[in-house]
């Protein structure tokens, strides 16, 4: 099993609603995997299984196994703090904290480590450079992060993640609030991040999935219909449902 993540017979219920049905999928390391499907098909739910963010929802129930690097994260003994440090998440709406730019990036270090001022400065600089914000923002690190543009905010949220040193990045429609140019630049950033991180992105923008992902998974009504290399899914899908969806017949 060389895969980064192995999902085995995963079922998830929100109270009575069966949101994920018998999901079986392997996700490869240092690739971008896109999860596509119409609204309400369970894409975000599946994504939120990987860092157990679904635990916050009242009445959620999970069954099955999800191995990340061989560890079953659905095990009740899983330490959520450690898990979420390793599995970072970028949200649909950029959600920088109402703190300074510096403190946003430093947040992860502050909650996880006791660290000296110097090395903190270094980490902040490295992470902001990594998301190409450093040159623009290095003179206003102590200004509020809420005044940035949407794209800058989303980059900042990614920088904030990188500071925690995750190895898996979950992105929940990270570009849906952005204009096309910003989207293109964030996608560029994702391609660069791919060399160091395993990325899973949820998107209902099929072109985006086709542009950036190596592999694509298609979900419909809580079931995984098809999963394979992106080129295969988009040019030669095996299932009728997949073909109908990517050719825009519904969704």
């Amino acid at each position, binding site marked *: 099993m060389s895969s980064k993540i192995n999902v085995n017979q995963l079922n998830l219920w929100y109270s009575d609603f069966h949101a994920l049905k018998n999901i079986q999928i392997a996700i490869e390391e240092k690739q971008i995997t896109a999860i596509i499907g119409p609204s309400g098909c369970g894409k975000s739910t599946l994504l939120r299984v990987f860092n157990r963010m679904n635990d916050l929802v009242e009445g959620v129930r999970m069954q099955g196994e999800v191995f990340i690097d061989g560890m079953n994260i659905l095990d009740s003994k899983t330490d959520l703090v450690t898990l979420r440090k390793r599995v970072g998440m970028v949200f649909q709406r950029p959600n920088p*904290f*109402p703190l300074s730019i510096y403190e946003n990036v430093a947040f992860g270090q502050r*909650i996880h480590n006791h660290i000296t001022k110097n090395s903190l400065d270094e980490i902040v600089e490295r992470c902001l450079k990594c998301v190409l914000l450093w040159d623009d923002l290095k003179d206003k690190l102590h200004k509020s992060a809420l005044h940035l543009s949407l794209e800058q905010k989303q980059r900042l949220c990614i920088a904030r993640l990188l500071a925690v040193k995750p190895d898996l990045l979950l992105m929940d429609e990270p570009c849906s609030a952005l204009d096309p140019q910003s989207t293109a630049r964030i996608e560029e950033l994702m391609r660069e991040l791919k060399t160091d991180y395993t990325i899973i992105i949820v998107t209902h923008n099929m072109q985006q999935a086709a542009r950036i992902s190596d592999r694509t998974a298609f979900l419909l009504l809580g079931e995984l219909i098809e999963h394979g290399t992106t080129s295969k899914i988009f040019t030669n899908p095996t299932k009728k449902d997949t073909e109908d969806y990517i050719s825009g017949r519904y969704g």
Partner: protein
Amino acid sequence: MQKFKEFIIEKLILISGLASIFFVILIFLFLLKEGLALFKFVNPGQFLFGKNWYPISEPAQLEILPLILGSLLVTLGAAVISIPIGVGCAIFIAEVSPPSIKEILKAGIELLAAIPSVVLGFIGMVTLVPWVKNIFQLPTGLTAVSGSIMLAFMAMPTIVSIAEDALYSVPKSYKEGALALGSTKWQAIYRVLLPAASSGIFAAVMLGLGRVIGETMAVMMITGNAAVIPKSILQPVRTLTATIAAEMGEAVVGSEHYFALFAIGIVLFVVSFMINVTADLFLHRKKI
């Protein structure tokens, strides 16, 4: 005909709106007229900072520093007790408690707000006062600290409900973001939610304290009413409000004493006004 009806209703509503402002202005003018008359007899500096309040001695000494300090001491004491408990309670209701307990707590807080202050004062008098007397081995339990404890109960509902609102209106995405970075629940509350809600929480505290400063009945019943400069919280004190309530009935209309009580009213009005304005500024301040 329809139009005429509209016109009448519109004007009636306008008059009701203006009436409240009109009465506030009238009250304020009356307060000023009666209060400022005092300063024909006593100079304002001496009135505010002199140490002797002997309104019925001959000549009357009308100096309110002991009363100001009494009010301050009782208010500070109430703040020390009610702020941590109130804010803690708000955090619990907004972030920690399961929904069922949350409803019970909120109903309880509302109930606390509904208890008339004279009833709280009365309960304090028969339960708290003897308790304070025994615990601290005092000659009397009618002290500043008893007043502070009772007033803390009165400030609590305001602090809890407004601070809870402030916490509740912090976008859920902040909390999610913090948790997704691997923070614990408490880290998310302490590092993100509290700073984000800080101006609302500050306003909650100010409004709570505003209520404490203006409170009369309970403090009059349990603080002992001794108009001396307090040296410790275990002494009887007299507050500005209690002085007015206790002495207005016996002051001769038009006497210096009578004017002095109105002047105290102005002091109270100014203090409450400043507290409310500060709270308002913070409540409506743009988040950073």
